[in-house]
């Protein structure tokens, strides 16, 4: 039951992009085409899950026993940055087709605050366990994928719209994201 609640809460109610404002940069940056947004979502799912797994273990078995909790930010960002590099190198070797699909997005992910954000948020869960933390990360990346792909499909249509001067580009994208976020607000109270 706990796990179903985490999933619904992460995907719909507290959507990581539209309600918690994490990962806004890729949300606006790579959402101009549906195909790139699918690639980005895959890369985020991959990195976020591994990163949360690694940071959870690091926090639980190294930082807390050693009383170094305050080094959380520094160590987490280092782990994530090196992990992204490692994943990139391994994918290149092990699975070239997957690397072809995700490769260009991987370096961008280091500065995706959603990855660091979820890694930190996962530590604050009730009765947190390794499985729960990883499930939390997977749910949040599903939420990210949903928001990103919907937004990319909307933006493909915006290209054709006739807009007032000055509204083109950034302002209209923000406005559309606002309306999308408003739609997701309707899920409040579901959990």
């Amino acid at each position, binding site marked *: 039951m706990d796990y179903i609640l985490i999933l619904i809460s992460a995907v719909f109610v507290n959507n990581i992009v*539209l309600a918690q*404002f994490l*990962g806004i940069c890729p949300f606006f940056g790579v959402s101009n085409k549906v195909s790139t947004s699918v690639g980005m979502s895959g890369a985020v799912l991959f990195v976020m899950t591994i990163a949360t797994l690694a940071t959870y273990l690091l926090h639980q078995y190294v930082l807390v026993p050693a009383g170094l909790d*305050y080094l959380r930010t520094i160590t987490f960002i280092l782990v994530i940055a090196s992990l992204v590099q490692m994943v990139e190198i391994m994918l290149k070797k092990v699975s070239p087709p997957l690397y072809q699909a995700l490769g260009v997005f991987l370096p961008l992910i280091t500065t995706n605050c959603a990855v660091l954000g979820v890694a930190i948020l996962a530590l604050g869960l009730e009765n947190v366990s390794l499985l729960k933390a990883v499930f939390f990360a997977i749910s949040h990346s599903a939420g990210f994928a949903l928001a990103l792909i919907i937004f990319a499909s909307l933006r493909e249509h915006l290209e054709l719209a006739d807009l007032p001067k000055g509204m083109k580009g950034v*302002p209209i994208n923000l*406005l559309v*994201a*606002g309306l999308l976020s408003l739609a997701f607000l309707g899920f409040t109270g579901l959990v």
Partner: protein
Amino acid sequence: MAETIDQKQNFLKGIVKDNPVFVMLLGMCPTLGVTSSAFNGLGMAVATMFVLLMSNIVVSLIKKQIPSKVRIPAFIIIIASFVTIVEMVLEAFIPFLYEQLGIFIPLIVVNCLILGRAEAFASKNNLWSSILDALGMGVGFIIALTALGAAREILGSGSIFDFKFVGEDANTFILFILPPGAFIALAYLTYIFNRLTTKTAK
């Protein structure tokens, strides 16, 4: 390095021409995430400006010692150290703000504005130019976040810097302090900013 950079322009570019929020769209997560009131926006922007200033100073001082292959990880460590300092200082002295900003304080590390300035400016310019660049960008960020926070607070809770100017039972646009309001308010602020800057450019 190029001593001939016009220092006044160097400072001012961060406020109008290359405003980090309205023009360059850097640091969007905290911009949208914490601006439910003017005070939160200001607090976040000042914390970010401090980290930006310190990282620009350190990066420009040791830019010759950093091998170019590992410069990004090196910058990230420098930034993360200052973020940890900010985190501890806020927790100790302004616990109220620390609670309000929450997750967004450690996330200053991944604010692309700071890494962006370290990479694009401080690693190529001297100390004095880097300080001015950080101050200009910081002030631009403060203006943007405070304006957005103020707009959302006025519309959403009928107050400004926690000073309430409508009656207790007055209806306000609650929407604006909820997440969608952040996107919508920033959309119109960017629109207004665009119109104003294109007009002055003519």
